[in-house]
């Protein structure tokens, strides 16, 4: 029996202690007609060597294509130490640190994470994580609507240049609470959010908050100072959605405009989390001190023990569901502790200078890739503003066909924008992180050139043999 240690003697002795004849008898309070027989549709169990063989073949079936997709998840170097330490049993198999004295390792690490996120974002406080960047933004929006005491409004301005999956997640989570998301169009030449676009929406206000993403989904850098000041002049709070690696290079939300952003959130995946098909990642959420009691999720504080020795504990729990129940700031309970463990070790090993090197290398690689790809006839950047590490390229053929043809050569050439932004079609969002080499970029460019010259072809997916 996998993972059950009982011997026949144990079972007999235990049943005797309980005073029943069989394990079946322990279920005698459950109505007999509800009890089921065999679960026919579930296969028989497997030994570790057999499941290992199956999983290895499935992992192999998907190949290891060359990745030029970013679009919210980025292929960065992860130091070997990060996951070797994060998967130590003491981190991996512990739970939420409710018993603080027996959880000082996790608690101190979370406090260090909070400290690092405060340093990166330039804000005052951080929580200990949310599920991911998109659901974290939903929590940030709910928080902003609660926290804005000057403007009692349930309208929030959300740029169309925000990640489509973030906008979709935001809709799913906040729309049931009466919050209205008002879309801000992007400038067709620059790809950025122009102040004029906000002015045009002003009459529909007032707004509780403005979402500002830096860089935006197109990789384009926004004029964050002007956007922040525009919102603050109208008593709207500013929610920055930021890439933590970009923050090593770019102005932090706490410095935006004359007063700084009020809330910053984003996806922590670039800090030591493998792409892993989309998760688990971790959302982060930081804010100014005055809003700390509106912050959802776990927060760790430093305090003293009976002997006056410093120690760490979960604090401000009166915000949370296990204390406040239906009056809580959020329903979140389990969050992404293990990913925060990885992110904290990752940030420690990279340091500020290391992260800046990564950011600068990504920026340079994407600029170089753009240059190489634009040598292919008909390929050109769609927007004329500076970018961080992604670029929208107009293609001379249907984007889906081009990308499928590249995939046949094991190159994931970018994200097809046609579905979410039909007005940009045919266009792809491309990314070259610090991991992409000159050879890899050259290979992408030459294959793209051949495909554009000779026409596209599409492979058909086929399921692996069982």
């Amino acid at each position, binding site marked *: 029996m996998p993972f059950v240690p009982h011997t026949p003697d144990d079972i007999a002795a235990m049943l005797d202690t309980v005073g029943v004849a069989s394990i079946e008898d322990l279920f005698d309070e459950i109505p007999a007609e509800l009890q089921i027989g065999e679960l026919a549709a579930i296969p028989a169990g497997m030994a570790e060597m057999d499941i290992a063989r199956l999983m290895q073949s499935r992992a192999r079936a998907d190949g290891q294509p060359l990745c030029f997709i970013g679009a919210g998840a980025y292929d960065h170097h992860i130091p070997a130490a990060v996951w070797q330490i994060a998967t130590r049993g003491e981190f991996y198999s512990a739970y939420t640190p409710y018993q603080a004295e027996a959880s000082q390792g996790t608690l101190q690490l979370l406090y*260090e994470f909070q400290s690092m996120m405060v340093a990166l974002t330039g804000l005052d406080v951080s929580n200990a994580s949310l599920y991911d960047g998109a659901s974290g933004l939903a929590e940030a929006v709910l928080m902003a609507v609660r926290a804005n005491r000057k403007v009692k409004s349930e309208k929030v301005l959300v740029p169309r240049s925000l990640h489509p999956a973030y906008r979709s997640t935001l809709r799913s989570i906040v729309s049931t609470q009466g919050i209205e998301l008002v879309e801000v169009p992007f400038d067709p030449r620059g790809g950025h959010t122009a102040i004029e676009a906000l002015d045009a929406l002003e009459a529909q206000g007032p707004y509780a908050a403005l979402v500002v993403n830096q860089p935006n989904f197109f990789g384009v850098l926004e004029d964050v100072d002007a956007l922040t000041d525009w919102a603050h002049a109208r008593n709207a709070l500013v929610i920055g959605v930021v890439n933590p690696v970009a923050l090593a290079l770019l102005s932090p939300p706490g410095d935006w405009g004359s007063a700084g952003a009020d809330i910053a959130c984003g996806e922590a995946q670039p800090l030591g989390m493998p792409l892993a098909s989309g998760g688990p990642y971790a959302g982060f959420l930081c804010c100014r001190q005055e809003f700390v009691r509106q912050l959802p999720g776990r927060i760790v504080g430093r305090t003293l023990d009976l002997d006056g020795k410093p120690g760490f504990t979960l604090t401000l729990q009166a915000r949370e569901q296990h204390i406040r129940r239906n009056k809580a700031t959020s329903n979140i309970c389990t969050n992404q502790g293990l990913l925060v463990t990885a992110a904290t070790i990752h940030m420690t090993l990279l340091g500020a200078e290391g992260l800046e090197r990564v950011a600068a290398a990504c920026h340079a690689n994407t600029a170089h890739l753009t240059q190489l790809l634009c040598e292919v006839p008909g390929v050109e950047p769609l927007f004329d503003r500076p970018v961080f590490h992604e670029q929208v390229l107009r293609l001379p053929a249907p984007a889906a066909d081009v990308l499928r043809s590249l995939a046949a050569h094991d190159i994931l050439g970018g994200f097809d924008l046609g579905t979410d932004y039909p007005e940009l079609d045919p266009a792809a969002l491309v990314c070259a992180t610090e991991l992409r080499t000159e050879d890899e970029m050259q290979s992408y460019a030459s294959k793209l050139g051949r495909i554009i010259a000779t026409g596209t072809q599409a492979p058909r997916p086929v399921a692996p043999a069982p």
Partner: protein
Amino acid sequence: MLIYDRSRPGRRATAQAPLAMPEVTDIPAALLRRSRPTLPEISELQAVRHYTRLSQKNFSIDTHFYPLGSCTMKYNPRACNSLAMLPGFLARHPLAPESHSQGFMACLYELQEMLKEVTGMHAVSLAPAAGAQGELAGVAMIRAYHLARGDLARTEILVPDAAHGTNPASAVMCGFKVREIPTGPDGDVDLAALEQAVGPQTAGIMLTNPSTVGVFDRNIQAIAARVHAAGGLLYYDGANLNAILGKVRPGDMGFDVIHMNLHKTFSTPHGGGGPGAGPVGVSARLEPYLPVPLVAFEADAYRWLGEPERPESIGRLTAFGGNMGILLRAYIYARMLGREGMRRVSEFATLNANYLMARLKTAGFDAAYPQRRASHEFIITLRREAKELDVNAMDFAKRLLDYGYHAPTTYFPLLVPECLLIEPTESESKEDLDGFVAAMVAIREEAQTNPELVKTAPHTMPVRRLDDVRAARQLDLAWQSQGQQ
């Protein structure tokens, strides 16, 4: 000592960053950072040693018996971790095309199918990132169902007082009012009170069965019939699914929507507070509203179904469809268990709980519901000890740490005074359970002979009892350099 205290200006783990630092020339200065963020400046060895030592300050399943009630702290098989971290799975981009995803999608599809079978539900979505997000999705589906029928008067969700705090919080996040239903003296939901509360305003009821008082609600069919007759739907909180896995199915009990906590029942790691995974299962009438993405099998290939294919869906819950690596771990665990192993999970979890309850009762402790069978967990109330010895449940919990046992869940559920909610799980041996009983007996003796020892416990942890009031009043939530203080 904080990692920041080990930091020295100019020290770096140089192997971990690109060797070159290209100059950035095309970004306007106003958009650039003016000074570097204050992150630690540390060598690689210092970092490795610091975090390895921090890990050693934790209790964990791998190192200690961890009978935290309603959390199902069972063994997390190592194979689940190493196979989910095969390079092919780790390197796969979430937006990779289906042509490069069939192996991964096969695992997700088969997991969906197995979860359908073991819960008796019509369809499953793996999207929710944790139990609470599964609850949010479930309640949102109940809301969508009533709205689609034009049934706009259903504004209330019924929640028993023993429920997890996430239940009322999730209901409120979906715009509902919460009405609490009391628990009867035998631990089952008070049917008379339910009768009073249910009506045309009822959107649904959220139930955990077995409940958090550690008993299977014997009236579940009557509750389902009553709520359905009033036009409400039944939500199953799967936190305690470990108690009935392979024995009884929520779908057969009459539930319309359920969430599962894969980090509990399917043994994925708790990770110091996540990640979890909270798939939802539904009956046929809620199927159109499932959160996306779903994995379908059509024409010899696995396909994603997103918002365009599922127009009535409540939508996305995270950017990339869920905690995929956790779903892989659960899949591996489920395949290793197989149909027989799943049934044994609930059988031995229940045997362990009933054995431990019987031994503690014999040792003179009071079970909160002594006349009932334990499910996979049970409650000991220390009300008598608190009154006679002035040593409370928290004191016992803290002293258990000194004996090398993680404390059970304390002071939850709120309706039982001085309670310990104890869940041993199936993966613990008889010797470990016996050791726990011996520790409880020893602590009670200490409470009689030397109560200060218990009231000031723990004594062997890295810190002694912490000042939570100070933590909340004098907020210190982030390290600040000397210059900033």
